[in-house]
Each structure stands twice: as structure tokens, then as C-alpha cells.
């Protein structure tokens, strides 16, 4: 119960990973884990894929914070799908009290321009929205348009943060550093003006100990390599690297002592046939051969996975294992959330 939590003090969890590694699922499970025991977590997606709605089996999320799921121990996970165009309009309204002018900009295509073409502006808006949600307090003057109505319970100080944690389902590893670092770039491009000022504040949150960038991987060459490259890049930009989450871990059944020999193809099929017989399986030679081949395959996979684990350990970051589960999305999320908590992630 939060005794040994690895990320005490971290309020913004950025979850990245190579495509296909299960980054959205891990982000959702982490949000559930962080919301446990009466806490409030906001799960944010920013790539317009509605992956969160799909996972939680809800209708597509609007550009507004919505209750998504109850976490174990009365906590609550809220969800938000950020739409860059909406975020820009909101931004104009909040900081400039621009209503009509924003619509004019929209008509001439400036909004489209700004959100899709202007370099990094899109990412500035996305990170800006995440920044706003992370920093929002109950006592704040103007809650954002997207804000969920969250009642402050007795005993919660008026200046408490609305969300105990924000989890961002971020762009993939290959783009994460550029995405998080875009504010530094923009601060260079827009050398003065409000965007410059906001960019600087966002950068200071992202580089602070309140942020952790977690990387999701599976035990395959390319994702592992990308994870290590990603960590190196993040470090170069002074962005705080969090944990490595190893997803879809399959149990290994072969004894470690036999692994290398089997991986080299050394299986004594006659002995295997005898062993099978003792377990009550009278297998044809062809079946024994097929089982031997499968076992060699599994041993090779296991040897490779051990090598990759060793490689990952060189990054010197905490790692969490999440099992491959073939159960429905929602049950899976809760199981993975429990696994994350057990390992100290939340």
C-alpha cells in the first residue's frame, strides 16, 4: 500500500514505447495503479487515436475530462483526449480572452496552419495542456474549459492539486524527446511573446523531478535498442528517465541449466520420449520431434530474452515486468495495475 513507491513526488508520468509494445495499455494500467486508495489520476492521450476509449470500452472521449474507471480503494481515473485545434482555441480564450478573433483565425486557416504545419506548435499545445492539468489546483482562479467537476473532499487543502497524478500516453520512443523538448525549440524560435514564456515554464516542469518518462518495451532486439537509444536521448536533453516496463512477458519453463544446450539444438529425443512415457504420453516419433523443435525454439527465445534483459539492465533504471494476458481489456488493465503496484511503480 504505497509503502515502497518508486515515484514518490512524481506528478507527471510520461509513458512512451516503440509502436506495438503496448504503451497505451501500460499507461492506462499505470493510471489505475496511481489512482488506487482514494487518489485521482488523469490519463491523457494526444495522438487522436481514441486508444483510451477503446481500452476502457467507452464512447470516444471528447475534449473534456471524463470519469473513466474506479480504481481499487475508491480512487478515480479520469480520461482526456487532447485535440490540438481545440487546445489552441482554448488557449486563446484563456490567455487572451479571444472568442471572435479565434474564429476569424480559424476561417482563414490559421488554426489549421498553426496546429498542423507550424513546427512544433502542435506539440507545444499538447504539452501545454498536459502542463495545465498537472498544475491545476482546487484553488486555481480559472479552471480550464476541459476540467472535470471534481468536488474537493473535507480535509483536502484548498490549494491541493486537482489530480494526484497525470499519466500521458505519449508519442512513441522515436519521437518522444523531440516531443517533450519542443518547448525548448520553440522558445528559441519565438524568442519573445507569451508562447516563449509558456514554453519556458513547461520545460521547467518536464525537466523537474516531478516528471518521469517511462519506456515500455518487449524483449525483442529492436524495441530494446530503441529503448536504450531513447534513454540516451532523454538524458542528453536533461529529461528525467523513469522506469523500463517490460511488457508481454511469457513464463519460461525450461530449467536455466539446460537452456544453452537446448538452444544449440541439443535435445535427446530418445530420452524425451522416455520422459513423456513416464508422464503418461505415448508419443509417435514425429510428435516427439515436433515437441523437440518447439523446445529448441523456446530455448532460443529464452536465451535471447536473457541477453536483452542484461542489455536493458545497463541503463540502470528500475524495471517492471508485465505478463502477457489473454483476458478482456478491462480485467487485463486491473491485473496489470496490480502487478505495477506490487513491483513498486505506484
Amino acid at each position: 500500500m504505497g509503502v515502497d513507491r518508486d515515484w514518490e513526488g512524481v506528478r507527471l508520468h510520461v509513458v512512451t514505447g516503440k509502436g506495438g509494445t503496448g504503451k497505451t495499455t501500460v499507461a492506462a494500467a499505470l493510471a489505475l495503479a496511481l489512482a488506487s486508495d482514494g487518489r485521482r489520476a488523469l490519463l491523457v492521450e494526444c495522438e487522436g487515436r481514441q486508444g483510451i476509449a477503446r481500452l476502457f470500452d467507452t464512447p470516444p472521449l471528447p475534449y473534456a475530462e471524463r470519469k473513466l474507471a474506479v480504481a481499487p480503494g475508491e480512487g478515480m481515473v479520469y480520461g482526456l483526449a487532447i485535440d490540438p485545434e481545440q487546445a489552441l482555441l482554448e488557449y486563446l480564450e484563456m490567455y487572451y480572452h479571444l472568442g471572435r478573433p479565434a474564429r476569424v483565425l480559424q476561417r482563414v486557416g490559421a488554426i489549421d496552419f498553426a496546429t498542423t504545419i507550424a513546427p512544433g506548435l502542435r506539440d507545444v499545445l499538447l504539452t501545454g495542456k498536459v502542463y495545465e492539468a498537472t498544475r491545476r489546483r482546487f484553488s486555481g482562479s480559472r479552471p480550464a474549459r476541459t476540467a472535470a467537476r471534481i468536488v474537493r473532499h473535507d480535509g483536502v487543502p484548498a490549494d491541493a492539486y486537482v489530480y494526484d497524478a497525470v499519466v500521458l500516453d505519449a508519442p512513441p520512443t522515436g519521437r518522444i524527446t523531440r516531443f517533450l523538448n519542443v518547448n525548448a525549440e520553440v522558445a528559441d524560435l519565438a524568442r519573445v511573446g507569451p508562447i516563449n514564456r509558456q514554453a519556458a515554464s513547461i520545460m521547467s516542469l518536464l525537466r523537474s523531478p516531478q516528471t518521469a518518462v517511462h519506456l515500455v518495451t518487449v524483449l525483442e532486439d529492436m524495441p530494446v535498442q530503441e529503448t536504450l537509444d531513447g534513454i540516451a536521448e532523454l538524458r542528453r536533453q536533461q529529461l528525467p528517465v523513469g522506469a523500463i516496463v517490460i511488457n508481454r512477458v511469457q513464463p519460461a519453463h525450461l530449467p536455466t541449466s539446460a537452456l544453452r544446450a537446448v538452444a544449440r539444438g541439443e535435445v535427446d529425443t530418445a530420452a524425451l520420449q522416455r520422459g513423456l512415457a513416464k508422464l503418461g504420453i505415448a508419443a509417435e516419433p514425429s510428435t516427439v520431434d515436433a515437441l523437440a523443435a518447439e523446445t529448441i525454439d523456446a530455448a532460443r527465445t529464452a536465451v535471447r530474452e536473457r541477453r536483452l534483459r542484461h542489455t536493458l539492465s545497463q541503463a540502470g533504471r528500475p524495471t517492471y515486468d508485465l505478463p502477457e494476458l489473454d483476458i478482456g481489456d478491462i480485467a487485463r488493465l486491473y491485473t496489470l495495475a496490480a502487478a505495477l503496484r506490487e513491483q513498486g511503480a505506484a
Partner: protein
Amino acid sequence: MTANDSVLPPAEESTPLASESTRRAPRRSSPTLPSSLHADAPADQPAPIRTRRSPASARPTRSTPRHRQPTNGTPSGVRAPRLDVDALLMNPGTQIIVCCGSGGVGKTTLAAALGLRAAEAGRRVVTLTIDPARRLAQSLGMTELDNTPRPVPGVRGTGELHAMMLDMKRTFDEIVEAHTTPARAAQILANPFYQSLSSSFAGTQEYMAMEKLGQLKASGRFDLIVVDTPPARSALDFLDAPARLARFLDGRFIRTLLVPTGRGYLRVVHAGLQFVTATMTRLLGAALLADVQTFVAAMDTMFGGLRERAEATARLLRTPGTAFVVVAAPEPDALREASYFIERLIEDNLPLAGVVINRLHLSGAPEISAAQARAAAETLDGAADDDTVFAAAVLRTHAQRMEIAAVEHKRLHGFTVAHPRVPVAFAPAFADDIHDVAALRTLGSSIAAGT
């Protein structure tokens, strides 16, 4: 790759076993899972999903009668036609193959394997990849990122395989240089806004991949181009990005910026423009807006050319020589993305050849069910000898594999029900990562096997 070979028709290479006392599992010619999902394609039916005349791709060919082992959980009546990969690759009419699909499904590797197979059948092939794994890039001879196709060493036969990695900034630079005077080009290339646009705008990569594809096609040096699409946010981005860039070039906002502020021929418009410019300045800071305006002014002369090129590459995708191959893994997300892609290709009238399901887990011993294997392994007691302990571990391993295969089978069933007429080919999951020509060859023959 030992075990996989056992359930797929002969791949070319086998790994010799280490010792005399061991035996290699014999190959079997009856793929357990895929066959149950395939129909024996009718011989003379029109291509099912192609809406345009185009070569090979979806033409159903009579597959040789296949052994169909009765397996547990095999859905009956659900049959996807088989994608005849060799017919697609060997047909001289196939000039462009676009491999698309979500990230992490092995698209790059698969594109390389298809390219190699076509080359070893005698064609002159180039594969255009976006982001290959380091070791794969090395073994394909792509050690430097110079935006030029390089010959791949170790290709057998009279054909050729070239490989190149897309350098998106350089491709953009080349377009600028080709479309304007050297002085103006230098001005554009030095503009900070251009530098950001050319290296970081989400969509530039897609656009530049299309641009490069057009260039390779125009060069006439190759008779087959295999393109690996960028690892996009969504697979559909690849189709949308060029149009988005073209729209941007035509956009009203660009026109707005292009109107010199001094020429107020329409007072109202002028006032509106000033207001817009003022707001943008407030938002972006004057320096950025100035950069943008300089950039737009410098680019003005080449907008027409760029738009034309964007349209030309879009047309190229619709020519009969193009075939789209959707790559997926038997994972829910990957299959969902593949579905979106298929629907979109059909909707846009783009030539879809079929789907390759990559990394499929198969078992060579389906006669022992997962439950049976688990139950037998459970009977192991503390007094058992080494052989029995090992046999129990083998059975647990087998049970796990059968369970994975069953789960994947279920997912594929759902997929083929949704797309009953889309031809499908399968590639097995390999225990080792594929990073050399020999492994690519094995992968290629696995995909083509049975056709």
C-alpha cells in the same frame, strides 16, 4: 529457426544439429493454423477486391490441395483466400509494392524479404526503407544515410537488390534545389522555419517517402520498388500526409501571408488581414512570423511545382502497377489498424493485394492439446528422473505455445470474418531476430510457401 521450419513447407536453409545423439525434427508440410483459415481459392473467379485492372496481386490462383489436419479450435467455414506472394512478386506488371501497417509488426523486415525474393527471381529491385534496425541496415549495405540506393551483397541469381534509407531533410532540400534558382534555394535552405518544417513536421516524412518513390520510379533503373511506410501515428497518415501538405500549399492562410500588407485594394480585406497578422504576431512572436513570411515568399515560385508533384505521386499509387500489402501481427491493435487500412484502401480505390500476418505462432504437434500437456506435466512428482523433469518442461512449453496459437487463431478468425475476400499470407514468428540476407530469404520462402 528450427521449430518453425517443422510446420512450414521447406525453407531453404536448415540449422545443422550439434551432436550425433540428437535428431532434427523432420519437416512437415501441413501448416496447422493457416490452412484452416484459407479457402482453396476458386480458379476462375474475378479478382475479389481489386476494383481496377492491375497485375497479379489479388488474382486467385488455384492452390495445390493441402493437407488439412483436424485441429482443435479450427473454425470451419471461415476461409480467407490465400495471398499468392510469388505471383505478385514475379509478375513483371507489379512495379511498386507498398507495405503498410502499424508500427512494430515487422513491416521493414517484411519489405526487405519481399524485395530479396523478387530479386532472387531475377528482377531488378530497390527497397526504400524508413527506419531499419541497425543490424538489418548493415547487412543490407545501408551503412551511410546518403539517400541513394546501394546494392545489397549476397543476393543470388541474376537479379539485383538495392536498398536505401530515406533521408527526409535531404529529399526536401533536393526538391527545393530542383525547383528554384541557386540563390533562392540557398535562401530557403537557411530559413529557420524551413529547417524546422523539413525535419520535424509530422507528415514531411510521409510526403518525402512519396517523393522519393516518384523519383525512383522516374529513374527507370528498377523494375520493382518495394516501399516500407513510415512508422506513423496511425497507418492512415501515410495516405493523408501528402494531401495535407498539398492543402497547406494551397491554403488560404498561405495566400493571406503572401499578400503584401501595403497593397490595400480592398479595405475590408486589408483590415482583416492586418488583424490576423497582428494576432499571429502576438501569439507567435514577431520573429517567427517574419521567418514564416520570408519562407513563404521564397517558396512562392515553387508552390505550383510542389503541388504538381504531390498530385503526381498520389496518381502513381493508383496506377495498375502498384500493389498495397498490409502487414499485421496477430495482436488486437495491429489487426485493428490493418482493418482500418483495408477499409480505407478499398474506399479510396487503391489496389490492395492482400494482408500478410507476420509473427504467427504455430505448433508442430497439435495432436497433444494444451490441456493434455498441462495435465501430463502436473503428474510429475518429486522422485522423477531427469528425463521426466525435462519432458514435463517440454510439455509446459508446448502447452503455452498451443495456447498462444489458439488465441492468435481466434483473433485471426475475427479478422477474416470481417474481411472474407481479402487474400492473406502468413509468416511465422522466428525465435531469432532477422537481420541478415539468409534470414530474410527464409522469411521470404515462408511467406510464399504453399502458393
